[in-house]
């Protein structure tokens, strides 16, 4: 199932930088906020423990900085989103207002989870990440434009090449990131594969 309103070719917005390598999904959304059967409440808890000190006072985290209010592009460093597979992490970022993440590299499950909810994640060189973070810190009102079609990020009068796996790029350009419909289209082939798997046909699990 691909649909026209799922197509993402390019997007623009201001940036919020969150510095540091190996920022894990526990830090993005601590587990104690996952005690819920929906994703609705997550936006207010994103990065909670980094945003409040022991006394509950704001630490001056970029997500609380009024200059970055309304920003929609998150800038990060290496191995962003490592650790737990919780989709609650991208859901929390999206609920806060993030529409794309630009980093030096991403943990795989996190990148897959972002893609599955229509949140593009792209990689840039370390120098570009540093330049973009400086720009966002010194000129928080600067507008960034991420062009997935051209694999390019424009910011502060500069252009930066961005990387993402071609398959992932196609998913956004064709609006097919909502995968369930697309996968169901292969129903016949799913049956064919199931019929050749010996653990389904010759030694299935005993009935409970």
């Amino acid at each position, binding site marked *: 199932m*691909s649909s026209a309103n799922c197509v993402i070719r390019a997007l623009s917005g201001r940036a919020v930088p969150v510095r*540091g*390598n*190996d920022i*894990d999904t*526990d*830090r993005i959304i*601590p*587990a*104690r906020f*996952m*005690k819920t*059967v*929906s*994703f609705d409440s997550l936006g207010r808890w994103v990065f909670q*423990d*980094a945003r*409040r000190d022991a006394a509950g006072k704001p630490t001056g985290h970029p997500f609380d900085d009024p200059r970055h209010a309304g920003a929609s592009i998150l800038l990060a460093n*290496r*191995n962003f989103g*490592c*650790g737990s*597979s*919780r*989709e*609650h992490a*991208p859901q929390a970022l999206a609920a806060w207002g993030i529409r794309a993440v630009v980093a030096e*590299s991403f*943990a*795989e*499950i996190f990148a*897959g*989870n972002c893609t599955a*909810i229509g949140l593009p994640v792209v990689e840039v060189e370390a120098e570009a990440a540093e330049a973009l973070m400086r720009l966002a810190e010194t000129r928080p009102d600067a507008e960034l434009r991420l062009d997935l079609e051209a694999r390019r990020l424009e910011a502060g009068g500069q252009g930066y090449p961005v990387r993402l*796996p071609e*398959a*992932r790029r*196609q*998913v956004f350009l064709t609006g*097919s990131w909502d*995968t*369930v419909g*697309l*996968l*169901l289209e*292969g129903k016949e082939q*799913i049956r064919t*594969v*199931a019929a*050749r*798997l*010996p*653990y*389904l046909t*010759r*030694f*299935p*699990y*005993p009935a*409970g």
Partner: protein
Amino acid sequence: MGKNLLNKVWDLHAVRRLPSGEDQLFIGLHLVHEVTSPQAFAMLAERGLPVLHPERTFATADHIVPTDGSTRPFADRLAEDMMRALEANAARHGIRYFGPDSGEQGIVHVIGPELGLSQPGLTIACGDSHTSTHGALGAIAFGIGTSQVRDVLATQTLSLARPKVRRIEVRGRLEPGVYAKDVILGIIASLGVNGGLGYAYEYGGPAVAAMSMEERLTICNMSIEGGARVGYINPDETTFAYLRDRLFAPGGGQWEEALRFWRGMASDPDAGYDDRFVLDADRLQPMVAWGINPGQAVGVGERLPLPAELPAGNRETVEKAYAHTGFTPGAPVRGTRIDVAFIGSCTNGRLSDLREAARVARGRRAASRVRALVVPGSQRVSAAAEREGLDRVFREAGFQWRLPGCSMCLGMNPDVLVGEEVCASSSNRNFIGRQGSPRGRTLLMSPAMVAAAAIAGEVADVREVLS
């Protein structure tokens, strides 16, 4: 050139090439738990979709269950809501559910292998990153997010890109007091927490061949901590002996048939790999992950690193680790005071883990300052340990003997660190806030090392206790 296991399993399960270029991959076993599945079931209901293969999906409750008593409703209303959602979803869709009164409940990555559900040659998915655990049986197993849980429920398939494969050869022999946990911490410390991005890890070599299935499960469990979504070990006689007579393993005439299939899925002797790495087990000592990610680990006889001596790329995270832990750069890790000791988790909550920890605890006493918890990985593990009297050994040593669950590995139930407590933990992640307190500190180590730390009240070298 021959084929490796990853490519054999992948080719067997490939349904078709999707327009994006990713593969649609059939999933042979789907495991669900209470935290990452309710939203997926809600998405199914929203679209009016049924579960395509309910007989290949199994559910249990592990993340939020209290370990000090299982009376329902749970005191925590939110936890109770999640349990009810799981029970209702399993019942509605005809999914077998191993709840707290089943005798089979436990951490999803403990019960999958233990019940014989996890088998060689399968693709296995679960909404939990430690699904890599099941690769120890020669399966391709990986964690997925909630939207992908929805995809598996509705279609028994996923859209995925095929990873590259790195062969990790573990040579030599482990000395007494050095365990599988130390091997995987050693691998992650060498290759980095992002070294496995884009790779599946195939573990092998003499040290791995000599390991029991439970030790292999520990190794594969932490693949994801090295950035590798998938980690596996080729099936061999150890694997087959482990599976024989398990509840969901093939029985009777089907056993030989299964064996033929399983043997055929192992990597060919001349299989090709995208990369190789060798670890010398002879030189390995008990490891302690002291910082804020599992790659920040040192041998128990070593000192904490000086930021200036590290490669520039690692310095920033190490400085952050010191800011969080308050530890002193260059100080010996041995002697670090602890407040809490936690033995359990999908990494090290199996019977052999409890036996090794009990060997250390037997006839000794946890330091009075230390709150020490033993949380078996499953009800079966718990029952087996109790038959051997391990619960008594731990209780007499001043450890609490708890009910099975994820517990203090991730602090979603009442078992959490308080304030700035330091915890010696047999779990898998020392991330900031991981054990439930934003300022808590986690030292990852083997279960025997945790027991030694509990008794000494500080990080100790288990080799000296055992000798």
